[in-house]
Each structure stands twice: as C-alpha cells, then as structure tokens.
C-alpha cells in the first residue's frame, strides 16, 4: 500500500520559523565570565587540559498540536579551550537525543501452518521511545566499540536492558528487530557525519523529529571526542508535550471516560442527524 509511507515522511514541512535563526554568537564577555566560573569551580579544568562544551538548542519544548507534522531540532554549541585559545582541530562531536524510556514487550511473528502469528516474545525494562545520534565523522572511526557502548553512540549500542534469560544470540536478534522497526517508524536514527564542525569550534546539527513522537522529557547530550576518548560532555533537557485541545482530549479520555464516551457518541449522533436534515432541505 502506497499510503503507508505517508505518515513517517510527513515531517520536514512545518519547522518553526523562529528556530532557524537561533545560532546566537557568544559575546566575548560571556565567554570570559563562563570560563572564570568554570575555573573557579572545577579543579580538573583548572589544570587547563580539558576543553568545555557550551550547548544550545533551538527549542526548549516541542508542542504536539494541530498542524504538527514533525519538526527539526537544531542543536548547536561551541568547544572552548580553557586557556581561551581555539580548540585543537581533531576533536569530534557526537550528539545523542533520547526520549523517555518505557518498559515494553517485543513480539516476533513466525510462520506457523502458513500463517504469520506472534510467537516468541521478550521484555525490555527501559527502551528509549526516541533515539537520534549525529556525529561529525562516522562513529566507528571516532571511538572503539567499548566506548561506543558506554556512551550509546549509534543504533548498535542503545542500552535496551532486556529482562529474562534468553541466550545472547536470540537477544541480539530481538534487539536488532526492535531497532529496525523503530528506525522505519522514524523514531530511531543515526546520522554519521551530520554534525557541522566549523574551525573545530562551532558545531551545529539538525535532528528531524517526526510527528509520532511520544510526549515526555527528552535529553540532548553532546560529547566532544578526542583520540577515541570522550573529553567533555554537556546535556540539555527538552520537553515534548501536548497543549490546548489536544492535551484536553488526551486527558479527558483517561480521566473522564464516561463523559468522553458520551461526548463521542453525541457528536456522532448529531453529525449523522444534522447531515440527514441538511440533505433533506437541499
């Protein structure tokens, strides 16, 4: 069915106009103040070895409401050297945006007697409902698999925390099935090389957020990687929520089931009746 593809590909048209111009330059005063604060508070940085990541995002929240067809989140920032000099040019930037986690059951269909039915299943304790990773160079070239696993760099390394004791091979099959499913729903993404790194200082990346995202708290983490080691990181919170009528509908359906059902029925009856009347006149 051709219409199947219409839902996930719907985003991209409605990015808010305000988000585009949000790359604010950092005034020298602000930088100095920031460095001063960091130098005072952090002994590690006082030695002047590790750079600092300053991060920003185009939006603090994403509102799910009429007309929302997905959006783009712009994450940007700068890599600062504590000594005030330009950071070395071989840094890499990795950005990981994660949605609220949830416990799920994952079911696998199998062909039994010619028919595809749900057969095996496995449980996961905390699966991110959304995951997007972007990096300035392919992740496999930046870090080794162990580091990638620690920081969840890439679709292969998302921590899904499976429960129960299934053999590792089966576990891997389930996990890759889940990642593949979510990837095609636009909920899991990996963009190698999508982060723009200018002069080894300013970075920016746009992450697409599809319309089928789950409301909740999202975390955007940014990592600076040098010679296979994460040397600085910083994170920002982002809230995805419903607002107005959409929030009211979602709440009422949960809290006021009776009135909600009654309203749905009345609406249905009224529209059916009104159409009949209208056409009788015409």
């Amino acid at each position, binding site marked *: 069915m051709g219409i199947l593809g219409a839902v996930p590909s*719907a985003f991209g048209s409605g990015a808010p106009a305000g988000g585009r111009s949000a790359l604010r330059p950092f005034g020298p005063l602000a930088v100095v103040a920031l460095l001063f604060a960091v130098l005072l508070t952090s002994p590690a940085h006082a030695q002047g070895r590790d750079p600092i990541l300053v991060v920003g995002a185009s939006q603090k929240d994403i509102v799910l409401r009429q007309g929302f067809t997905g959006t783009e989140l712009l994450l940007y920032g700068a890599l600062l050297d504590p000594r005030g000099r330009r950071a070395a040019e071989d840094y890499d930037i990795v950005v990981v945006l994660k949605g609220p986690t949830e416990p799920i059951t994952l079911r696998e269909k199998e062909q039994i007697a010619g028919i595809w039915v749900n057969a095996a299943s496995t449980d996961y304790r905390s699966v991110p409902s959304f995951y997007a990773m972007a990096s300035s160079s392919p992740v496999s070239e930046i870090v080794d698999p162990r580091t990638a696993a620690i920081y969840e760099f890439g679709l292969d390394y998302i921590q899904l925390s499976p429960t129960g004791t299934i053999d590792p091979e089966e576990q891997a099959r389930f996990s890759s099935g889940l990642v593949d499913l979510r990837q095609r729903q636009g909920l899991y993404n990996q963009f190698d090389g999508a982060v723009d790194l200018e002069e080894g200082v300013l970075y920016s990346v746009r992450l697409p957020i599809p319309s089928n995202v789950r409301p909740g708290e999202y975390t955007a983490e940014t990592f600076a990687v040098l010679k296979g080691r994460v040397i600085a990181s910083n994170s920002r919170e982002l809230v995805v929520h419903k607002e107005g009528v959409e929030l009211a509908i979602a709440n009422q359906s949960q809290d006021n089931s009776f009135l909600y059902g009654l309203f749905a029925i009345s609406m249905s009856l009224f529209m059916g009746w009104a159409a009949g009347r209208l056409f009788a006149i015409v």
Partner: protein
Amino acid sequence: MDVYLPIANLSVNGLFIVMLGFGTGILSGIFGVGGGFLTTPLLIFYGIPPTVAAASAATQVTGASVSGVFGHMRNKGVDFQIGAVMVAGGLCGALVGAGLFSLLQAIGQIDVVINLLYVLLLGTIGWLMMREALAELKPARFGTKKRAAKRRHHPMIAALPYRMRFYASGIYVSPLAPGLLGLIVGILTMLMGVGGGFMMVPAMLYILGMSARVVVGTSLFNILFITMLVTMVHSFTTHAVDIVLAGLLLVGSVTGAQYGTRIAQVAKPEILRLILASIVLAIALRMAFGLTIRPDEVYSVVPL
C-alpha cells in the same frame, strides 16, 4: 491538510481520512451496512494503531447509521421488537467481546485473531452473496428457470423453544435466535470495529427468514445501538476512541451516506448486491494474502 490525532499520537492527512469516510458512507447508504469492515482495515494499513482504529471506527459507524435509521423508521422499515431483542443480545456480546479483547491482547494474538475473523467472515459472506447475486442475474439471461420454493428459515432456528410472533418481520421464531445473532454481532463489533451489518443482513434474510422490507432498517437500528455501546466500552477499557479521527471519518461518511441512499433508489438491487459481494470478497482475499506473506513488520511493540 495535516491533522494531529491526540489519542493515536500521530499526524495524518485529514483529507484522506475524510475521503475514506465518504467511501464507506456511500456503502452504508446503499447497503445498510455500517462500512466499519472497510474503515478499520484501511485505517490500519494507513498506520493508525489497530485498537484506535477499531474503537474510532465504531464511533463513526454510529453517525453513519443514524440518518438511515430515521429514514427507515419513516417507511416503517424497522422491526423494533426484533431490534430490541438483538440489542439486548448485543449488550452481552459487547461485554464478552471486551473480555476477549483484553485476554487476546495479553497473550499477544489480538491482531492475528482479528485478521482471521475478517478472512473467515468476509470470505464466507462474500461468497454466499456472490452466489446469490449471480443466481439472481442468471434467469434474466437464460430464460425463466424458477428455483425451488425457498424455506422460510433455517431448520435449526425453527427447533428453538419459546417461539414468538414478530409481526413486522412476518416470522414466528424463538427470540433466542435474534438474541444470539445480536450477541455474535456485539462480540464482533467490539473486536473488529465493525457494525456487523454485512453479516446481519444476510443472516436476517437467510437464517431468520425476515421479510426483506424490514431487514436493512432493523439491521441499521441494531448497528446504531451496538456501536454506541461499543464506543462506551472502549472509552472505559482501552481509552482508544480518538474523537478527532472519528470526527474526520464522520464528516465524510455522513455526507457519503446521503449520496448512497440516492444511488440505492435508482440502481438495480441485483447489481448493487454483486458489487457489495465483490468488495467484501476482495477485502477477504487481501487479508488472507496478508496473513500468508511475510509481514512488513515481523516485530511489534506492546507497552508493559
């Protein structure tokens, strides 16, 4: 026109949904079926979660049948006696269906069962209707070979106790028969988001032997009440009724139903029945095919 559905949690093309409603509305106007058997699978193909599709389609069918019921009431085309018995049976059916729904959901077989039910029901009924429609068309072409006298109703129905006279339908049967029919339809409405008209109409005609004059009206009457009930049960148990989705479907279907009624008045009934039979069979075949090929999604996620 992009519309965000607050319960389904995704955004859809509103115009497409309205057109879908319009198509099923035309069907419901012509044949007296709710059109849920078309809406639910198409919504699922489109990417709406199955539970939300079934629940919201049930809500939409209420609106699609209401003006039909009024119309048939004016023409004395509703047998309220049998209608009431069937609604009572349907009430029990909806509750049984709700229980079955959560049970099947728990063991992870709800979508397979729904698909199998579609294939079995639509396949059987489509086949029966197709045979009937072709048989009706044949004598017109090959002269006047009259068929053997038809029996009033199925012998098993006649064997049921407590027989009653239903004057409007012109039958003398036990109320258990329409009650049981209502029960089955209630279960199916809950599980599949269908009004059940596509199986009620033939069952009333060929099993109960009701007079054709009241069959469509009584079926619509039953659909109206059963879908209202099912909307309520879904609101309480699955919380899956999306009123934005139902509203969009309604806009299309209530207008479609009006056109459908007009088509029904001018078109040949045998041809219409043949068309309905073809649609029903086509959907059954499509779903049967879908069960045997490797599905697009081998994995599915259920929140714990």
